[in-house]
């Protein structure tokens, strides 16, 4: 069901048929529908899609930060082979920060305004590594230096408001890496930053994770960021993965019409003055997801089977895509 991981590496994270539901007064809404993917050791998986496609929810489900009425209704999440989706709260807490780190979108609100940057770093380090105060502080200073904060031995006693947005996101990255996790989930880590700072942060994240062999699940809607840092990319639409594969292949030759639409909406320097492509319509609301393929109403190439059955992920080029157009039997039958 998923793209084969790069050779010679066992997956750090395996997600299998993850189903996520919200129980509301008007019935059960399915926000993630049989999502499956792997992330190999040291691999960067980009996850793209429109707002509401389920990208962030997938990240939250993996790290166990889900809030009622949402719940995991099916499937499995495995971290280095061991299931983590059914752990007791305290066991899950020990995994958060220690084995899975997380970076949120807005560095301005990710840090507690009333505590020194150092307090928050030392707290995280001591929770997971059990160092004494002096050792934890030394480690915190080293981390700040590593993420490129100048004069870290002085800045460690600063409060978050004394840092700029980009510097705060560096602190957030230091916090996420504080206990050397195996996997970092970065949820739109650059969206809230100035364009000039975005590239720096992405480069930093890429370098730090490569040095440590940390895997990254990078959630974004910025294809430029994906092209820059990701090894593979998963395209999500209405709670499903519609295409997943090596980043070059998906960007250059997307197989799913939705992925093709997304790539067509990227401005390019070589493209001249041609109009950017635009996908007509909007993603359906969770309670209005159409039968069959959820993208069907917006798809220019929809044909008979699309309204009948949900297309499974099938081999397409070097990756997988979920579209009936890729199924020879279906297209042949429709042509007759």
């Amino acid at each position, binding site marked *: 069901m998923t793209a084969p991981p790069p050779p010679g590496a066992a997956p750090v994270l395996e997600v299998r048929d993850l189903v996520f539901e919200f129980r509301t007064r008007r019935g059960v809404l399915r926000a993630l529908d049989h999502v499956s993917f792997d992330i190999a050791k040291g691999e960067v998986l980009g996850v793209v899609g429109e707002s509401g496609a389920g990208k962030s929810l997938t990240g939250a489900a993996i790290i166990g930060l889900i809030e009622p009425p949402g719940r995991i209704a099916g499937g499995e999440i495995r971290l280095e082979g061991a299931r983590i989706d059914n752990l007791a709260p305290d066991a899950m*807490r020990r*995994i*958060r*920060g220690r084995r899975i780190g997380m970076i*949120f979108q*807005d560095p301005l609100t990710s840090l507690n305004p*009333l505590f020194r940057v150092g307090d*928050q770093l030392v707290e995280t380090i001591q929770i997971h590594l059990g160092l004494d105060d002096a050792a934890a502080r030394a480690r915190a200073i080293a981390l700040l230096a590593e993420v490129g904060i100048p004069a870290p031995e002085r800045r460690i006693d600063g*409060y978050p408001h004394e840092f700029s947005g980009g510097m705060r996101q560096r602190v957030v990255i230091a916090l996420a890496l504080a*206990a050397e996790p195996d996997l970092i989930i970065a949820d739109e880590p650059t969206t809230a930053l100035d364009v000039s700072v975005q590239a720096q942060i992405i480069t930093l994240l890429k370098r730090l994770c490569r040095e440590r062999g940390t895997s990254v699940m990078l959630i974004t809607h910025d294809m430029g960021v994906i092209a820059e840092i990701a090894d593979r990319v998963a395209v999500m639409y209405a709670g499903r993965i519609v295409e997943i594969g090596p980043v070059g292949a998906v960007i250059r030759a997307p197989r799913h019409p939705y992925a093709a639409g997304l790539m067509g909406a990227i401005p390019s320097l070589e493209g001249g003055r041609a109009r950017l492509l635009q996908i007509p319509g909007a993603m359906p609301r969770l309670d209005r997801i159409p039968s069959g393929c959820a993208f069907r109403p917006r798809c220019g190439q929809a044909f008979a089977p699309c309204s009948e059955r949900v297309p499974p992920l099938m081999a397409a080029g070097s990756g997988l895509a979920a579209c009936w157009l890729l199924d020879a039997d279906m297209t042949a039958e429709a042509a007759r």
Partner: protein
Amino acid sequence: MLAYSLRSLAQGALVLVAVAFIAFSMFRFVGDPVVNMLGQEATLQDRRELTERLGLDAPFPVQFARFIGNAARGEFGVSYRQGRKVSDLIRERLPATLELALLSAIFATGAGILLGVYAAINRDGFLSNLVMTGSLVGVSLPTFLIGIGLIYVFAVELRWLPSFGRGETVALGWWNTGLLTDSGRKSLIMPVLTLGFFQLTLIMRLVRAEMLEVMRAEFIRFARARGVGERTIQLRHALRNTLIPVVTIAGLQLGSVIAFAIVTETVFQWPGLGALFVNAVQFADVPVMAAYLMFVAAVFVVVNLIVDLTYFALDPRLRSGARLAKGH
């Protein structure tokens, strides 16, 4: 920091002068003290003499300047009714009111924060729902009714606590304290509960609402993502953020506890400033009323100053803001 405190002090002084003006105006508009003191049958000669003695014949600005000067030294003249110096009357009554109000304030903030945090953490628990419902009673029942209810249960039916007065007091210099005798402490219980109950429920509801709000903040989610335990998040990360807005409201509320203990003092016949003021109003005893007005203003100014300083202790953003203002 220093500049900030000085500015707060200057503002406080301005408030006091404004209130002094209002207090002073009362001398002109609330009845004629000379008639009150001498009665209908006094001769014109008597009146003129008293007017001169009270300094009421001087022009307005002179009288006001004299009033401010005296007020700054704590002198508010002589009570029309009791013929004694107002400053002595206040000094006699002040300990009773301050002991009552401070204990109520401690009770209301302490229990209010504890219950508020509890109700926020165990949001849908049976106990927190009970506490929340109970707090509605506190917010909606008038103070005197709570006092009367307590008197009925604990003084009339159970006979555990005295129903009025301060009990025996011990003099420490000019300060008469009820805290050092058994009967004094027993007498304090019901008035303290009565006076503090409304503030308690208010602070509790405020703390709960603020804490629920803070718990939805992104940095709380990030703390969870770092693996911080839920208790640490609630009591370390959330509580401090909760207290910043609570300090303002609670501070003003506590000011009003000290200033407006009148109803409670009346219900329990507490020999404090409130009772003194009520009697003064009935008699149009303007010097006492003016002094009380100034006292209330001073209490609010002082409380506000303490609130400002507490902000500094709690919020680092303000500290560096002040540093910037100083050109650091």
